[in-house]
């Protein structure tokens, strides 16, 4: 169920967060199929969010951007906690 960790992603490849536009939200799975058809690995799809996690290099990101219905392609963002410490707000 969980996505692969960064450590497991091959050198030179990046986990990309692909956002589908509103007009294509209902066909998010089909867009994931389009990404796969371009030889790019799709790791996870969250259709309700129009979100696709794809793993590839910079050229893969460019290829995904050219697919109709793709709103944005960015390296997958992270939310990190600071150390747990009484003096550091968390």
């Amino acid at each position, binding site marked *: 169920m969980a996505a692969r960790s960064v450590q497991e992603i091959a050198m030179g490849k990046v986990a990309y967060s692909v956002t589908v536009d509103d007009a294509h939200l209902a066909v998010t799975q089909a867009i994931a199929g389009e990404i796969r058809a371009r030889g790019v690995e799709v790791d996870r799809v*969250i259709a309700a969010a129009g979100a696709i996690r794809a793993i590839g290099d910079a050229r893969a990101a460019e290829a995904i951007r050219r697919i109709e219905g793709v709103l944005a392609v960015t390296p997958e963002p992270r939310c990190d906690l600071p150390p747990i410490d009484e003096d550091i707000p968390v």
Partner: protein
Amino acid sequence: MTEQGDGMGAPPFLDLMRPRPTGNVLVSFLPRDEGAQLRALERCAQRLARGGAWRARALSSGEVGRLDLAALAEPVLLAGYGVGLVPATAGTAAQVASVMAADADIEEARPEFFMFPIGRPAVGGGDLAVDDAARTWGVAAVGAAASPFTGRGVRIAVLDSGFDAGHPDFEGREIVAESFVQGETTADGSGHGTHCAGTAAGPGARGNRPRYGVAPEAVLHVGKVLSDAGRGFEFDILSGMAWAIDAGCEVISMSLGRPAQPGEAPSVQYERLGRRALEAGCVIVAAAGNDSARRFGFIAPVAAPANSPSILAVGAVDAAGLVAPFSAGGLNPDGGEVDLAAPGVDVFSAFPRPQLYRALQGTSMACPHVAGVAALWAEAEPSLRGAALWRRLVETAAPLREGARDVGAGLVQAPPGPTV
């Protein structure tokens, strides 16, 4: 809203935060050679009716460092330092320590304790409420202590670093748990998730333990989306959100985020799930973020995902009702506002074993106060779900002296009992 308490003297939760024994006995030897010290350890074993089964070993500091001291089977001597560690397998740590302290070659023997970072004691004294033996200041300040509702049957999802399911305060509680972090169980390696879950849905008062949970009878759904190292990938977080919505949770608490820049638009992905949640009768609340440094005049924008218009952003206030110096402000439009404020300074709650309790600060602590109050409202009026529940939370907030940029509609408030 103002509540007076005994703000003088020792903090009321000090007993709960005292040192906890590891089960081993720490032995300090009189100045003797290593052989005499080892013999003393073995002599004590015989006196403890272990029949000499112990084989004491002298180890270097590096070798001791590699031992699993939680599973120590035989005594060890830290060579050259005159200090030994003995497992209390032949009795309680106090019994073993008594026998060993009586030995002619031993100067002192006492239970070994877990050592934790030194924190500031949670001392109350503010205007909203102070900690007392019955409940935390936060539970009182949001009106939960005086509310007849407990969140019974309402499902609260806490998407965080997991949860210590063996924590004694949660024994017998129905808890649904799922990990979205690769290679990790739902166990909480950070402590952050257990603390936040404790605030949202921890237990009522018992013995010398105060009530620190806002909704003690809510059904806790734990979605682990942050790793033991405190790292969260957004697809794990999005997956956890979708899981909680599909599970029918009425409330989702997300004490997590990443900084947003001035002018930054909210994430389309988070916003879609926020809307989906509201349509499904679920309110998502999120921590506004801790990147302000108000003592120097700097205010950071509300972080993502709290900056999504369909996710309720929670800022932190202290016991005086003042915005916490770290709490983000509503600088960005279109979702970047702070919607509500809640207690987020010196918040006493659960922490994974063996520590059990800790007082922490942050909008992470404020967020589950709002989640818990939302559960109380959801129990009080079953028609309050989704957007209606959001509106009720905002409409019933208690005004604060601080401006809306920093505390939104004010301090979240639990449903009062029926007026007589």
